[in-house]
């Protein structure tokens, strides 16, 4: 059946059964391979995307449940790696193998969109569903604080104008 969804600001129509996980529609039908497959059961967060702004595990979300909704993937976060979370990630040299990082970044971006000044406890809550076998967690935390600082600075500058 044809399923319509808005992916990264573009209306798309895909032929898929409604129970196909959104992950495979993104990766194999829409060729958006920045979203990763790792556990297939929602345990690890590597497949995290935004559904109407909320972080979801696309490996466990039937595409039918995304019908008519807005999906944002790592490719849609910015066109040039300029999102404050992405620039903070580069500044803190977060990635090692990099495989889980799309999911980490999407979780972090969703956190900051809802809570621009997260405490360490807030970050723990938001990020503990994203596994990283390389152990980049310390830098992920630093990068989230850095991105929050940058967002606050931008807001201040915006306020002065």
């Amino acid at each position: 059946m044809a399923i319509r969804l808005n992916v990264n600001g573009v209306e798309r129509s895909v032929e898929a059964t409604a129970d196909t996980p959104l992950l495979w529609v993104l990766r194999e039908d829409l060729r958006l391979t920045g979203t990763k497959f790792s556990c297939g059961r929602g345990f690890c967060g590597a497949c995290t995307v935004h559904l109407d702004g909320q972080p979801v595990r696309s490996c466990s979300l039937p595409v039918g449940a995304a019908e008519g909704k807005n999906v944002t993937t790592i490719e849609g976060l910015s066109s040039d790696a300029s999102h404050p979370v992405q620039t903070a990630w580069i500044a803190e040299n977060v990635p090692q193998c990099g495989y889980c990082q799309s999911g980490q970044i999407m979780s972090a971006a969703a956190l900051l969109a809802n809570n621009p000044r997260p405490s360490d406890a807030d970050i723990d809550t938001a990020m503990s569903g994203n596994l990283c076998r390389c152990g980049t967690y310390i830098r992920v935390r630093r990068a989230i604080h850095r991105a929050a600082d940058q967002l606050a600075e931008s807001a201040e500058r915006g306020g002065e104008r």
Partner: protein
Amino acid sequence: MIDPGLTRRGFLVASSLAGGGLALGVSLGRSQAAPAADAGDTAFAPDVWIRIESDNRISFQIDRAEIGQGVMTALTQLLAEELEVDPTSVEVGFAPGDKMQMVGGSSSIRRSWEPLRRAGAAAREMLVRAAAEGWGVPEAECVASGAQVRHPASGRSASYGELAARAATYPVPEEPKLKEPAEWKTIGQPLPRLDARSKVDGSAQFGIDVELSGLRTAVVLRSPVFGGTLAGYSGELPDDVTAVEISSGLAVVADGYWRARQVADGLEVEWDEGEHASLSSASMTDAFRELALERGKSLTDEGDAIGELERSASSIEAIYELPFQAHATMEPQNCTAWVHDGICEIWVPTQNLNGARRAAAKICEIDTERVVAHQTMAGGGFGRRAEVDFVSEAVELANKIDAPVRVLFSREDDIQHDYYRPLTYHRLRAGFDAEGQPTSWCHHVVGPSLIADIASRSAAIYLPAWVPGPVVRGLRALGLSVIGSWIADPTTAEGARELPYEIANVCVEATSTGRAVPLGFWRSVGHSHNGFVVEGFIDELAAVAGVDPFEFRRRLLGEHSRNRGVLELAAERAGWGNPLPAGHALGIAQHESFGSFVAQVAEVSIGDAQEIHVHRVVCAVDCGRAINPDIVTAQMEGAIAFGLTAALKSEITLERGRVVQSNFHDFPLLRFNEMPEVEVHILESGAELGGIGEVGTPPIASAVANAVYAATGKRLRKLPLRLS
């Protein structure tokens, strides 16, 4: 004939590029002898090529896999330093795996340190000569930097691109002059990772991301019991899905992973479970317990350890146990293969590209040269991607169907069909004199033979290059099959056989048993268990002697030993001996592996449910010299997280010949909220370079266990650590 541009040392060869560029081929490390052995005197096959194009683009290929350890960045720093170019301007690619391209043993930097710098310096000298001769000025008056050569006296300058064609006509300098450390601009600097950008915008191409027209995806159903074979299958197979029998089981092939998985899940598959259907971790441990009471193959025998034990005023004995461990790379194993036009093309995230090519060639019955291999980014390695099982599956399948095909493991496949860190059982005994000083140390390691397992399955491909020569010869002499308990596997006891502590009588023995479970290299290999065991038992000796565990170790380590250097640094920075928050305690451990020395102090507390919280780890590392200190720090952070998963969270157990665990719910990884603060202190000893990728893992489990002892008085000798 050897190319006249080849240097006397056989490291370098120069040639012209179409369009007026300079190409420099570099032969690395161990491969020095390869041209003669592989190709007589007719050819010189460099490991990597450095190219300077006429438009000033500078590129080079690394013969290593980027598995997260940062080699792309650090190797580029080595080259850029001597070539006098901005490392961020160099285009870095992967070599095609013509020669041994194994990433293991924390060897990448050590192997490339001299030859890559020498190559950069040689190219620089050729470019300077080209400029000087063109301008008619002495070379000594010219300066190379920023990918150009300048003549300050006359104000002239030329880019490397402009000079490359002329430079390519010169012989390669035989003894290029390397810069003094004081002159370094990028070596020793925390250059940001060159691969960071592509890993934050989703554009990095991992194996799973390879796209080809007409690509099919396969899931493979494998025997749940190791060594089992497919007996038959039944069930509905839709028109768009094919099932193909391959050596490892049944491949179900469709247009896409989800479709293949759904259909595969609906099939009824029967297995002939073979001889290992009753194997369990418990039965293996029972057997090892018996073997540990007997004598093993002697690896270290200093003084009369057994005799001294019997004569000693007092003695202690302890058993340490470690389970099987999985690698659990975040990117599940995969390989894409396409057999077409008389060649086999593969796209694969691997630590062993050359082995992958050889495996493919064997299956297709073609020359290795006809296997075209594309190395992708790898979503973690940790030793798992030194294996080529997923390559063999994909190529076998591609050979049978007329389309490119990707074999993709599910997480369940990945956990249940890994090549595991062996389960090991350790019996330790120590004797003391009347003053409580240790006089003897006996350690007997019992475990299945990792090397025998690897050798038996890879002999047809080749033996891993880092396996010590005597082992290889020994195994060959035995026809690779007769691996009994009388052979000692060097990996079983690595990190145990050379006790750094000054105890007069030392006896280290190993018993390597046969194998039924696939075994593989797991980040730091034998050190991963022996670091835990040796540093746990030495802590027990300190307790018997009634001496502070840091002070006890310090006294038994040589005054100028590098072990003692990192031990003292870690203790000092951790504030060893200072007051701690209520309920907190410190534990310390140190371990040498792959030429580097690491000490760690862990600060723990115990929760209401007897769970262990690790709050902080202070880590001191002496790897000789840090090429990129931020990458060294990141590798320590990562190795600690990796080791903490094994210390606190996960194990692989076998029941009825099957792996019990299947995904991250029952093989849990350390989570974000469980990650301690980590402080890394690099001790720049200037000693010979050591490895970095693995060396942070061995001490951490022991540092934590020793801290738990300090907090509770309970000595935990089994991983994962459990207080209740």
